[in-house]
């Protein structure tokens, strides 16, 4: 079976973001970028499924500006086989990402599509569910455990109440939680090897997808700042403050 993994290039999770002074968005020029963290878990899981002999090929897809190819290259260095890059403006809406992925899935016929449950830039948490709906496939969201069978896949979902276990008929879309696994680092020889792995270039015209935005971003602003607090000298003072000043205990 084939596995398709969708990855997104985002501002590195350790970077403190800066909002553009005109409020039009978040500054991404000269900022460290990385693969969206739960997408790394998706790549790792695909590699483990292949290493267990249950998949033959892992294809990495990324959609966005030219530099998203670097993110594909990272996944190829981890061990994936080949890449597909779809050139679009940065940060198109999840419904449009899902429509592009739908076309690629129809072309490549994977049995499983893996991706992170959420991108840490727009925090939308939509793409996997939307792709699943467009394809009419089963979906497993916020997944912390996967067991791949012949015609189905058993999963554990992280839900507000605890854990939920489902058996999904293949083909299926899986969105990964950070708890799914520990992503590997690419070794130097594998980074070298990845440079020779093929990345196919596509455009939205090649795929015949309309990605006209439906949502306008009017403004991006800093959240209200908290007033600076105080340091207390000991526990007794803390408890007195909480009781008499803040009146919360």
């Amino acid at each position, binding site marked *: 079976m084939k596995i398709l993994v969708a990855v997104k290039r985002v*501002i590195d999770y350790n970077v*403190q*973001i800066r909002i553009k002074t005109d409020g039009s968005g978040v500054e991404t020029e000269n900022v460290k970028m990385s693969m969206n963290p*739960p997408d790394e878990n998706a790549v790792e899981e695909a590699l483990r499924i292949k290493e267990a002999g249950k998949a033959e090929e892992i294809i990495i897809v990324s959609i966005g500006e030219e530099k998203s190819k670097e993110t594909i290259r990272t996944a190829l260095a981890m061990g994936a086989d080949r890449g597909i890059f779809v050139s679009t403006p940065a940060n198109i809406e*999840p*419904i449009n990402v*899902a429509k592009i992925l739908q076309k690629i899935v129809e072309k490549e016929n994977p049995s499983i599509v893996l991706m992170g*449950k959420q991108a*840490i830039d*727009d*925090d*939308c*948490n939509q793409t996997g*569910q*939307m*792709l699943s*709906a467009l394809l009419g496939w*089963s*979906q497993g*969201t*916020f997944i912390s455990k996967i067991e791949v069978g012949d015609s*189905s896949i*058993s999963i554990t979902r*992280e*839900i*507000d*109440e*605890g*854990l*939920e*276990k*489902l*058996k*999904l*008929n293949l083909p299926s879309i899986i969105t990964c939680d*950070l*708890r799914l696994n520990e992503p590997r680092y690419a070794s130097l020889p594998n980074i070298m090897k990845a440079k020779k792995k093929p990345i196919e270039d596509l455009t939205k015209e090649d795929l015949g997808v309309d990605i006209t935005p*439906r*949502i*306008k*971003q*009017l*403004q*991006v*602003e800093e*959240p209200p700042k*908290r007033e600076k*607090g*105080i340091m*207390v000298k*000991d*526990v*007794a003072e*803390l*408890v007195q*403050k*909480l009781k008499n000043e*803040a009146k*919360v*205990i």
Partner: protein
Amino acid sequence: MSILVVAENSNKEIKSSTLNSINAASKINDDIHLVVIGNQCEEVAKKAALIEKVKKVIHIDDPQYENIIAESIAPIIVSLSDKYTHILAPASTFGKNLMPRVAALLDLSQISDVIRIENEDTFVRPIYAGNAFATVQSTENKKIITIRPTSFDPAYSEGGNANIEKVSFNADQSLVEFIGREESKSERPELGTARIVISGGRGLQSAENFSMIIEIADKLNAAVGASRAAVDAGYVSNDYQVGQTGKVVVPDLYIAIGISGAIQHLAGMKESKVIVAINKDEEAPIFNVADYGLHADLFEVLPQLSAELDKLNTIQK
């Protein structure tokens, strides 16, 4: 035109996140309909009809909906969608799983995790783990929205007198088989709604030490939370996690013990009314959001805190 709110329910009761979503809906339009889907959830539908601001309850009751599967439920919402300008659900794992599926089936975008409603087509939502707020405007004639429950007061569960309309719908169940659910049971208040939350981080160093947090939580009648680092280290299970990928909490009092304050943790708690941070690292970013900071070793502080709270309880008695 009206607004549809998708109720999150357990077949026995309406989840409180639904009440927050109803209140959010009322900021757009008064004609709010609530859809309740489940198995033997007659009582839930009756209670739903009593919620203030709800004008109509659509009740779908069938053994096939004992466990909510997004693949089965999404077509129900789609079939109801014609009459509505907005369809809302809480941004809980229930709503997050379901609503994008509904949106895609209707060829619509979704606006996730709304924290403020400006008007019928303009909304504010956090991005970058709450480090920025984006004001977004939908250009579509139907809006699919998930609501961050902690950003809206709950609607009163009484005062309404809605009609209940029973509808049947046969879902395609062939894609998914429900195997089971492991729900974490606790005597303590629920993390999402507790008045006081006390959370532990990697500073606790072990699952055994985490019991010191639990002991203090019991004295304060507080819910227990944890940072991702503490969860990843195996001190507690993941449903304790507060943060960008865990739960977002807004208690009156949040006490962070041995938590450094990574961006992703702050995203889950920095809207709390009063924040206390106890950490031995003076430079820990958690102190930047704390109203009261105590720079000290938690292993010395926790027994003292426990003793001080005992004194306090004696005074209160």
